[in-house]
C-alpha cells in the first residue's frame, strides 16, 4: 500500500540524509496533538495522593518532592518529544530507536518514586524493554535483509514476501511488549499507582500514539 492511501497527500519532507521525516495530514495531526499534550504537562503541577492509614485515623500524604518533581518533569517532556518524533519519522530503524527511547524514559518517570510495588512493576517492565531490543532491532534487520532498504518510502513500493511479514510480526511483538498492550498490560498498569498524574499520563499517551503509528507503518509496508 502506498503512503498516500492512508494518511493523505504528503505535504512535505524534512530530509536529514538517509532519514527523511515526512509530513502528511495524519502524521501532522498526531505530531501536533502530542506536542500540545507535552506542553500542557510541562506547565501543570502534580496532585497529592492521600492514603488512609490502616488502623488509625491519621492519613498518609504522598506528595512529590521538588527534586523528584524536576526529574520527572524533564523525563516526561523528553518522552513527549520522542513520541512526537516517532509520529513523523520515515525510517524503520529510526522508529525502533524512538521506541527504545520512549521505553527507557517511561521506566525513568516512575523510577524516582518510593513505593516498592511501583518500583517492582517498573523493574519488570524494564526487563521486557530489554528483551524488546531483540524483536525491534532484529525485526528491522530482517526487513533490511529481505528488501535491502529501511526507508518507508521504498518499502511501501516493494510487494510483501513471507520474510518481510515475519520481520514485521517480530517487530509487532516488540512494539506490543514495549508499549504494554493486550496481554502485557499488567507490568505497566501497576506503574500508574503513584502520585504525579500528569507525568503518568504521558506514559499512557505515548503508548497509545505509538500503537496507532505502528499499525499505520504495518499497513504501509505490507
Amino acid at each position, binding site marked *: 500500500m502506498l503512503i498516500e492511501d492512508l494518511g493523505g497527500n504528503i505535504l512535505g519532507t524534512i530530509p536529514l*540524509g538517509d532519514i527523511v521525516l515526512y509530513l502528511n495530514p495524519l502524521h501532522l495531526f498526531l505530531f501536533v496533538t502530542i506536542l500540545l499534550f507535552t506542553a500542557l504537562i510541562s506547565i501543570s503541577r502534580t496532585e497529592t495522593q492521600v492514603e488512609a492509614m490502616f488502623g488509625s485515623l491519621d492519613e498518609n500524604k504522598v506528595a512529590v518532592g521538588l527534586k523528584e518533581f524536576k526529574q520527572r518533569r524533564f*523525563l516526561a517532556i523528553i518522552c513527549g518529544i520522542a513520541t512526537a518524533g516517532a509520529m513523523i519519522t520515515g525510517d524503520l530503524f529510526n522508529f525502533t530507536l524512538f521506541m527504545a*527511547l520512549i521505553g527507557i524514559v517511561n521506566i525513568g518517570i516512575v523510577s524516582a518514586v518510593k513505593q516498592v510495588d511501583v518500583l517492582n*512493576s517498573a523493574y*519488570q517492565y524494564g526487563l521486557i524493554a530489554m528483551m524488546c531490543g531483540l524483536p525491534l532491532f532484529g525485526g528491522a534487520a530482517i526487513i533490511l535483509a529481505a528488501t535491502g532498504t529501511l526507508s518507508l518510502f521504498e518499502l511501501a513500493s516493494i510487494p510483501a514476501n513471507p520474510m518481510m511479514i515475519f520481520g514485521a510480526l517480530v517487530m509487532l511483538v516488540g512494539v506490543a*511488549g514495549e508499549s504494554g498492550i493486550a*496481554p502485557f498490560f499488567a*507490568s505497566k498498569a501497576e506503574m500508574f499507582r503513584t502520585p504525579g498524574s500528569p507525568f503518568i499520563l504521558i506514559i499512557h499517551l505515548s503508548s497509545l500514539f505509538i500503537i496507532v503509528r505502528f499499525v499505520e507503518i504495518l499497513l504501509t509496508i505490507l
Partner: protein
Amino acid sequence: MPKIAKLWNKLANPKNIPRLFAVILGLLLIVGFIIPMGLNTDQIYIRPAPQSQMDAGLAIAPYDRGGEVLVSPGVTEAQYPENSKNLGWINSYMTPIAELLKALSPYFGTSICASPGGLIDEILYYTRGFDTILESSILMMAFIIASWLAINFTIDRKEERDIKEDVKRAIASSDRIANEVEESNRKAREKQAKKEFR
C-alpha cells in the same frame, strides 16, 4: 471457565509478565524456521568480501572505500544520495596522525577508520546521523535515571544529605514498629484474657 479466571489473575501479576512475553517471543522466533529466508543481494552500503582487502594488502584494510584525502570522495551508496551534498568526502578523509599511521604500518586499518573520518563516521554522523542522536539520547536518559537513583538512594551520601530527615524517617519507622508490637501485645493479652475467662 475457572481456568480462564485463573489465567487472568496470573496475568495481573507483574512478575509473570516478562516470562509470558519471553514465551510468546520465543514461539514466534521458532516460527521463523518454516519461513524461507534469504539475503536480498541488492543492498545499500555494500562491503567487499571478508578478508579480500586484507589479502590485497590495502593499508586501511577492512574499511578502504576509495577516494583521496580532500581531493576526491570515496564510494558510499546511500539510500538518498541527493539529500547528502558531500557524500563520500568524510569517507575518504583522514586526520594527519592517521595518515602518518597509515604510512607506518599496513595493519592499523581499524583505528585509522575509527579516528575522525572514514566510512562508519560517514554513516553514523552524516547519512544516518539522526539515529545517532537518538541513540546517544537513550544513553543519556539511562544515565540520568541511573545516576539520579544512585545519588539519591543507593550510594551512601549520609554526610551530605540532611541527616535530620533521615533521623525523622527512622523515628517514624521505629514508631510504626513500636505500634505494631503494642498491637500484637494487646491481641495476645486479649487472647489470654479470653482463655482465662473460659
